[in-house]
């Protein structure tokens, strides 16, 4: 009788297997082969970017709210968590050494690590990072709730985009002037001395967390209400859905993850500058989710990594002296992708677990309503909009 429950978990095993495999491969095969810089920009930073993009896709791709303000919430998450850890500082450090497994010499040839240590982590710092991420994310969510309540209530489509872009610019300006209130941000000069605590493990963990939460919400009644707003807001209202509430929910969830990403970012680079949170950069998440396909989770993940690898990879691949060409080539690539695949890289394809669960057809013995004759079987002509 509990078949439907098992359906939800049942489809997931492949996903969880993939998650574990990808993690192990990245942790023990990929990362040791990359230098510090490439490890950061090719692996850890894209994980963080993917979190913010998943959040934005939830807002724009699934809920249909054209938001350019994601970058502002990202900045809020980053600064809030950085200030927190900066103040609490180095006092928190409780290293825990776990079981150390000596790898046999044969395996050492395959895995370029002498030993694999399980449970080797710093409990204090991990706890501090969790608290910091939560703090940044919740603050971003709260501010988005207030901002969303005022703005979502009255503005639609492009105007909402402009207002949110304005929000991002205002946040940046406030950060530039923030040293008047909070001296340690150092305003325009940038904040230094943030404890570097984001490891691949944490970035990946939060990415999976974001993915699963968004996926679970999406394929529930709440998610259907969120999507119905994108599909046809008026019809959604007529179906008894409080569209304002679900717009707010989507906006807050999306901003929450922007805050998570911001906190991880702050503790990855250990340096924050208001310049990084400028309005031109704020288009990046929007570009990524459109490349990956609006309303496509798999596409967002793929596009984020492709985007980061291409953009940073060009530093290496372009011949000497052509570094300045990076941002000449990038828009051309962008243009070509848009012209060739305006629907996004993956179109409608989703990886198994991220696809909507299907329900078996059920034959119901019900008294049936009189059949409306099907003289029109086959091809609906697109209905012209009529107004009365």
């Amino acid at each position, binding site marked *: 009788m509990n078949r*439907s429950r098992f359906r939800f978990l049942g489809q997931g095993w492949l996903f969880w297997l993939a998650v574990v495999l990808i993690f192990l491969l990245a942790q023990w095969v990929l990362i040791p082969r990359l230098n510090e810089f490439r490890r950061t920009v090719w692996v850890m930073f894209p994980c963080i970017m993917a979190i913010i993009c998943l959040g934005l896709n939830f807002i724009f791709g699934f809920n249909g709210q054209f938001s350019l303000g994601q970058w502002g919430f990202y900045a809020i998450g980053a600064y809030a968590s950085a200030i927190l850890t900066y103040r609490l500082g180095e006092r928190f450090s409780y290293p825990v050494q776990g079981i150390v497994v000596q790898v046999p010499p044969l395996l050492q040839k395959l895995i370029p690590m002498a030993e694999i240590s399980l449970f080797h982590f710093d409990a204090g710092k991990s706890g501090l990072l969790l608290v910091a991420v939560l703090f940044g994310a919740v603050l971003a969510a709260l501010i988005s709730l207030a901002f969303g309540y005022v703005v979502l209530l009255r503005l639609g489509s492009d105007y909402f985009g402009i207002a949110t872009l304005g929000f991002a610019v205002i946040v940046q300006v406030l950060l530039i002037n923030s040293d008047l209130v909070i001296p340690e941000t150092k305003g325009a000069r940038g904040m230094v001395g943030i404890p570097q605590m984001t490891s691949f493990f944490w970035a990946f963990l939060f990415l999976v967390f974001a993915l699963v939460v968004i996926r*679970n919400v999406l394929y529930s009644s709440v998610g259907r209400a969120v999507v119905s707003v994108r599909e046809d807001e008026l019809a959604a209202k007529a*179906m*008894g859905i409080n569209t*304002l509430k679900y717009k707010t929910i989507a906006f807050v969830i999306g901003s929450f993850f922007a805050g998570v990403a911001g906190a991880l970012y702050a503790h990855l680079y250990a340096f924050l500058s208001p310049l990084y949170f400028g309005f031109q950069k704020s288009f990046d998440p929007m570009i990524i989710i459109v490349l990956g396909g609006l309303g496509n989770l798999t596409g967002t993940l793929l596009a984020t990594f492709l985007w980061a690898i291409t953009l940073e990879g060009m530093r290496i691949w372009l011949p000497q002296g052509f570094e300045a060409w990076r941002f000449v080539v990038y828009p051309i690539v962008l243009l070509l992708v848009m012209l060739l695949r305006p629907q996004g890289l993956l179109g409608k394809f989703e990886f198994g677990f991220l696809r909507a669960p299907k*329900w078996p057809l059920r034959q119901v013995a019900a008294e*049936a309503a009189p059949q409306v004759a099907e*003289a029109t079987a086959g091809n609906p002509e697109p209905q012209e909009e*009529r107004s009365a």
Partner: protein
Amino acid sequence: MSATVERPVVLNTEGLSKNFGGRVTASGYEGGLWAVRDFDVTVREGELVGLIGPNGAGKTTVFNMISGLISVTSGEVEFYGKKLVGRPAHAITQAGIGRTFQNIRLFPQLSVLDNVRIAYHSRAGYGLRDAIWQGTRFARKERELTERAQELLALFHLQDRQDEIGSNLPYGEQRRLEIARALAGEPKLLLLDEPAAGMNPREVHTLMDMIHFIRDKFKLTIVLIEHQMRVVMGICEWITVMDFGQVIARGTADEISNDPKVIEAYLGRQGRRV
């Protein structure tokens, strides 16, 4: 029709008016266009009422005001004695008024099943936390609501289509799906906006049978908009005729088709022939 007198009033509007583009000044509304002016109607339980008139007469505007999709300039709507004006659209739907749209408004990229399940949303019985956690409560409630949706689809011969995308259905099935979706909200009053639009007379005939059927099965009161006289003549107990935002006549089908005002303004000399 003496029995109707005792039945309780479902819907009652008084002086319902809508002004587009006018401005509020200290002394009321100025300028603008009155899409609907002083619309009064009383609908009793179990009735099937027709609202007819040419395009632009304000019929759909009346529906939009009753269902809360546009604001009301002045006047009052009462539903089982409760005042509706000023309440948001979703609250009005949840109170028991369902509707369809003239130019079918499905959720175009969602499956047929999801189209109906969205309408069950307010009765889903779980919230955001259950959705994220996906526990037993979620699984149970989700199964219940899906099964109810499937039953409703079966009633409209759509059960095999549940995974189809809404906008890929042929026209007739889209109409049926939209009515099924409106019924999922368990309304007491159903507003149908030109359900027969784009159908040939044979299809209209079956549609009317269907409307009778759902009224009896779901114990509904129905108000429907139509601009062809012929369609409503056969099935509506009461008819209200609108033109230029105002009610020009009301009565039974027979009374309407012989009303000189209606003939002059709407039907024309040979109008009854059409």
